[in-house]
């Protein structure tokens, strides 16, 4: 009798575990298929991050550090953390100020510390001020657009007369292809002139 109960319990536990895995997978979670395959993440994994640029400086690290120092530091180290936080804020401000100033100077790199703190698309979305670049006169990123997409947003491609630039009209939104830090992406733009 005791053995029967044990067997029944083990069977119930196995059914519960299997059910949990199937349920998790069905919901798009981290479960795995019985066939040995792996779940593929919709939209893929991000290639963007502070380490992607391989720089000896990190701009996003500075931004995150502001919040994380407070949380991470133990009570006894609170004062030290605040000091570091303040230093890093000052450094960030100094960098921004110098980055704004350097463009007026020569040579080009002079007074631009932390220039290799690659911040990728996130910083570009924030409106990085840059010098002249090719191909910028045909479209503008939409201020209210949905940002960037690695995949083609829809199939409705439209070629702008005159410029020959291809746009994608997806409902009320417009996109065009542009070169970002990790290759081509589709950027939300305002409705192009003439379309």
């Amino acid at each position, binding site marked *: 009798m005791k053995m029967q109960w044990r067997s029944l319990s083990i069977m119930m536990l196995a059914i519960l575990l299997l059910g949990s895995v199937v349920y998790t997978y069905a919901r798009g979670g981290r479960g795995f298929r019985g066939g040995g395959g792996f779940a593929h993440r919709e939209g893929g*994994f*991000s*290639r963007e*991050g502070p380490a992607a640029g391989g*720089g000896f400086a990190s701009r996003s690290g500075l931004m995150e550090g502001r919040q994380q120092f407070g949380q991470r530091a133990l009570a006894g180290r609170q004062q030290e953390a605040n000091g570091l936080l303040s230093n890093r804020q000052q450094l960030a401000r100094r960098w921004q100020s110098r980055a704004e100033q350097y463009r007026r100077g020569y040579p080009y790199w002079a007074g*631009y510390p932390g220039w290799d703190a690659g911040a990728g698309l996130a910083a570009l979305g924030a409106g990085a001020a840059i010098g002249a670049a090719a191909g*910028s006169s045909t479209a503008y990123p939409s201020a209210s657009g949905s940002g960037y997409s690695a995949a083609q947003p829809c199939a409705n491609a439209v070629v702008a007369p005159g410029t020959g630039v291809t746009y994608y009209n997806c409902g009320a939104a417009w996109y065009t292809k542009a*070169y970002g830090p990790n290759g081509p992406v589709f*950027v939300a733009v305002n409705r192009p002139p003439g379309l």
Partner: protein
Amino acid sequence: MMRMAGFVSKAPKWSVTVHSGYDVVQLDGYKVEWNDVRKVTLVRPDQPRVEGERSDGTRTLLILDGKGITTFDESAKVYAQASHPGSIDDAAVYFVGDLRMRLPLALLLVSRFPEELQQRVQSVEYVEKTMTLGAPADHIVGRTATVDFQLWIAEGDKPLPLRAVLTYQDARGQPQYRAQFSDWNFDIDPSDSLFTFTPPEGANKIPFVAALSRARSLRQRPAATKGGKQ
């Protein structure tokens, strides 16, 4: 470290292969490592070429030729170009700092490499001498304001970087960038054609994302200043 920086920055031409990887902490906490291999060829003062192959097979090319910048994605058959006359130093700062494009370990390319390190590095400590990289090397650890780094530098009359690990301490999940250098060659004689880009048939020219951002900021400027001081 400063000997290494001086040696690399003063060499008039060189090539090296870099196997690198970097972590990206996903929103749900997974830490994913992305890898690539790059062949860097550099002729001072203004001609670097970087051929890359990502772990997903995407092949890329970056050419700076003293007049402008070209980056090409062979898989997607698209390229972007920007005019920017000047030295490697100028072009690298523009490409990475302003266009926000990827050029990992860009400091190694610029002639100001020693000065850049001097400005940034706050502390350095010697870890050990090691033989694990195929040649006797000094392992050092150092820190800038935002990045902790480790370098393995070859001993002897050619103090070349053999390996680098950068840790972004303040970023979520403390991601790292890792690079292993091989096939350093200072006896190269590349032709000018290596630094000339001819678009392959069917390749389309597209703008840099940063160029679109700039267009937006220029477009918004008049509205922003309306009513302000003249």
